[in-house]
């Protein structure tokens, strides 16, 4: 039987995920997600479903793959000049731990900065992660990004908060 991860193992994955996005290592980032992984950005506070009503983003691994494949295309016009981002994370808090089911939840407030040329956008959000233990190690089952201003009129957000 696998040993239950310590809190530090769980939080390490959260920091690692943010760092891989910031460094543009998207394939490694993608590998952190479970096969049934999901990336959800609700459009309204308390949104109950990203499937039955519009969301900012609600993507399974197939759609995340599509997103990353597009970013590699030299004709992804919006990415010229290059877009860079930075996550500034508050210490992730382990909010749930079910070692028997290998299921863990974490909550991480953060500031996200995206920059391109001379423009820069700043967003504030909380990430809610569901992590699961797999034979290959910890994986992200769900990342839910709760933007503080999810219902505001937003500029294009090109990378991954």
């Amino acid at each position, binding site marked *: 039987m696998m040993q239950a991860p310590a809190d530090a193992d769980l939080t390490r994955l959260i920091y690692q995920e943010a760092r891989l996005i910031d460094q543009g290592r998207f394939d490694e980032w993608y590998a952190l997600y479970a096969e049934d992984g999901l990336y959800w950005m609700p*459009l309204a506070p308390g949104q109950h479903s990203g499937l*039955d009503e*519009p969301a900012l*983003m609600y993507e399974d691994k197939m759609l995340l793959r599509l*997103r990353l*494949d*597009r970013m590699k*295309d030299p004709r992804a016009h919006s990415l010229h000049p290059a877009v860079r981002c930075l996550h500034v994370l508050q210490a992730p808090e382990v909010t749930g731990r079910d070692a028997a089911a290998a299921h863990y939840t974490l909550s991480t407030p953060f500031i996200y900065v995206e920059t391109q040329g001379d423009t820069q956008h700043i967003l504030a959000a909380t990430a809610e992660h569901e992590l699961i233990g797999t034979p290959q190690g910890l994986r992200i089952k769900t990342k839910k990004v709760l933007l503080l201003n999810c219902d505001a009129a937003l500029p*294009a957000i090109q990378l991954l908060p």
Partner: protein
Amino acid sequence: MSQPMPMQPPDAGGESMAGLVQADRVHRDLYLSARVYELERERLWKRAWVFLGHDSLVPKTGDYYTAQIAGQSLAMLRQADGTLAVMFNRCAHKGSRLLHERQGNTGKFLRCPYHAWTYKLDGKLMSVPLKNDYEGTGMSASPSGQGLAAPGGVRNYKGFVFVRISGAGLDFDRYFGSTALATLDNMVARSPLGELEVVGAPLRNVIRCNWKMYLENINDTVHPISTHESAATAAAGIGKSLPEGDAGTSLAMEQLLPFGAGYSFYSDMGAKVLPNGHSVLGTKASIHSGYAPLPEYEAELAARYGADQARALLSFSPQNTVFYPSAAFKTSPSLVRVLRPLGPDRTLVEAWALAPKGAPQRLRQRVASYARLVFSPMSVVAHDDVHLFESQQIGLGSDGNEWVSLHRGHQAGEAQSPELALENGNNEIMMRNQYRGWLRLMDPA
């Protein structure tokens, strides 16, 4: 002693805009000039019938929905008798906004937070504090004593609420005409109950470009192949790796794959230009025509209308019907994009998902999926559009050519036919037609 400021309307001088629009091209000042924008606010956005919102946003007495339309703060409120009232969201006393949320319920009356003037739901003044102090003054006879002002025209067309700020101008039916309105008829008829409702919240985007660029693009069939090449190529790559038959059943793939269609696909769509700048793109087919059938829902419509009529109803899936200048509707997936200019170089675009009341879950998921894949600030499709609109807004400032070409398919005398069916969906006549509508609304008279 200082002189009072002379009273001068912002439109003084009756400037003509005719020099900015030629038969086959338009001047860059249309997009760049603060003066043109100011005159648009004064003329075009007040004379046009502008989409305010869907009435399902305000189902119960006292429910309200507010919007900013080219500087005008408007509110629609559900009355106790079930009807709607639309008024300016401006206290009759000193102008404070009465409603500060985009949507909510005000209870049985409206109360200004500043001096507690209160109004009935229809805008009539109910009470003011220190009433006795107003005796013998001219307040009650003045506009301030008349309660909340209302726009010149309001029309609830089968749940779609439009306003005309000005008291003068074309009446609603003449402004849109039966061909444009047929798109709304179709959307409503797709509901077995004859009623639509808004699904979830709108996707709201602020884009640093002139509103007319966005509206032109709604009729532009030639950009997808180059603008959306990266998204379409990625979708095609994923599509190939899916198991046989899967691509047709995945909502996302059936919605994204058509973005890779070639010029001939769009050319074959067919289109119609209509008076006053309106148009229908995709009269014969569109990127929405190939969605998987929903047998139970279709059987329900067939029982209601008969099989032939139900089929005709569902096969009308234009790419967009432009309700100039403020909205573009898709019948399937049932969706409206709403344009709210914020300045000469800033535009708010909202995408509202709609579905028949009691619609099968799959239909709601279809519109939710399309809205987020294509119109979200996180959309892999919209990123390239937004980037290029913003690039165009900056690029047009460069000297060397002051004109924007709209020559594709131009034929001398085409403007003589106010309503024209086109075989070729790639014709820029839809944009030339928008500018003919623009000129008419910008007439200084």
